[in-house]
């Protein structure tokens, strides 16, 4: 077991180090969520005037939850890009040769993604507070929201690792991020699901991200809804994506 943790720690440290010392990697992962927050919470705040829009903490808080969870997911996605880059450069092959427990590699990347998101999530939260976000949830409920973000980050990085390890090329980037991006935006991003109309309403109802988003918004507002459903969904997704990532690693091992 200690060999597993040694590998995970080494890969995580490298992942975080590479992120922190390379502005080209670090800046976009921080700037993008910030601009989503600015564009949505600032530019679209009039949406809260739509009849039957009811979210007591206000539109900034409403959008913060989406951006917070989105940044968590994209923390995982961006780490997937790094995995793909490691395969493209040949580093991953050397890493697999030297790692006594290769499953530690996935754990290491996942840990790296979590640390990476810790930075982004903190910046986004500070920005939202500065922008006037209202928080009605209790400390326990806010920890619940944080838990949703951590779980979202884990699911996303496992997905990203799986794709990157199956394809082993940087060109996998679009395939890593597009499904995540689309799933996120097919949830009730701008208005509550009750105000969505047409096909997007039907899709949002079936989209598992909707429950996570609604749970997050409920926790921030101090009136939790669908929390158990959200965590259960993320747990199931985590198990599926964990298996997918492990299969990806096996595929990479087989490819040599």
């Amino acid at each position, binding site marked *: 077991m200690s060999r597993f943790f040694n590998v995970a720690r080494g890969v995580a440290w490298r992942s975080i180090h590479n992120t922190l010392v390379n502005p*080209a990697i670090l800046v976009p992962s921080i*700037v993008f969520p910030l*601009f989503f927050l600015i564009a949505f919470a*600032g*530019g679209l705040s*009039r949406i809260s005037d739509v009849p039957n829009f009811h979210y007591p903490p206000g539109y900034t808080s409403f959008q913060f939850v989406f951006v917070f969870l989105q940044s968590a997911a994209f923390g995982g996605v961006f780490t997937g890009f790094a995995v793909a880059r490691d395969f493209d450069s040949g580093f991953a092959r050397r890493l697999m040769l030297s790692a006594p427990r290769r499953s530690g590699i996935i754990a290491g990347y996942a840990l790296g993604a979590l640390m990476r998101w810790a930075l982004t999530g903190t910046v986004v939260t500070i920005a939202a507070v500065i922008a006037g976000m209202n928080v009605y949830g209790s400390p326990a409920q806010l920890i619940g929201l944080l838990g949703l973000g951590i779980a979202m980050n884990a699911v996303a990085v496992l997905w990203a690792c799986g794709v990157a390890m199956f394809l082993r090329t940087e060109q996998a980037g679009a395939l890593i991020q597009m499904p995540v991006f689309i799933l996120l*935006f097919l949830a009730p991003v701008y*208005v509550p699901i009750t105000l969505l109309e047409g*096909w*997007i309403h039907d899709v949002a109802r079936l989209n598992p991200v909707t429950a996570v988003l609604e749970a997050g918004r409920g926790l921030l507002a101090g009136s939790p809804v669908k929390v158990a459903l959200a965590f259960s969904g993320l747990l199931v997704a985590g198990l599926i994506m964990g298996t997918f990532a492990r299969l990806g690693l096996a595929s990479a091992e087989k490819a040599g």
Partner: protein
Amino acid sequence: MAVDVATGAASIRAPRPTASLLEQTLAVGRRSVVRTSRQRALLIFPMVFPLILFAINGSALSAATKIPKFPTDNYRDFLIAMPFIQGAMFVSITAGVDLARDIESGFMNRLAMTPLRGEALLVGQLGGALVLGVIQSIVYLLVGLATGVTLVSGVGGALVLLILSVLISFGFASLGGLLALRFGTGEAVQGIFPLLFVTLFLSSSSLPRNLIKADWFREVATYNPVSYLLESIRSLVITGWDAQALILGFGFATVLLVVSLAFSQAAMRSRLARR
């Protein structure tokens, strides 16, 4: 004396020393178009991504039409301007990365040994991006019409919209070319892309400026030229023939094109320094 210039996938016959500027431009332009058309896989994402956002946001934000004084009751009519500008921004990256690749691979240095004029090389290099801009504009217009967008300005408006859209695409392509010439690497050009996207976010892309609630955001959107590019396209869809919106749209697109080309020409001169 004709010189064959091998360029990997494509090869062109370099124009004679006596070839006119137009001939030189067309020769380089042909290579650029061929190269762009051979990268189909890389071209699909930039074309499809704005359409995906259009499809999603067109429905997800439809509740916005219930805001008092919203200019239309179909949010897609309002949103259709966005794919044109987003697509144009992607064109800028395609153009910039292609040009940067020529710089990185040394192709530009080899061209410096030919009698090719810098202006021909610059405009010709953007040929592929121009073709891409035309294709994108037509696709976006057709998708818009197919999804229920109605152009109040009619067929004539559709034609003006296409011309304006191509002009905007060429303007952004020139900007991409300028970035490539200044920085010399594709990575740097791609690194600038988020900044371009930010200008789209901080504009009247999702709501009319008069309905933006946050004062600071409305101010930023008012000073952001991208707002006027969007509003000129939007005017043809929603308002009809709005001379002011069209003048501002064509004006800003022309300024972007002229300024980018002017700076690019100076940068090209130093890249093609014949020592």
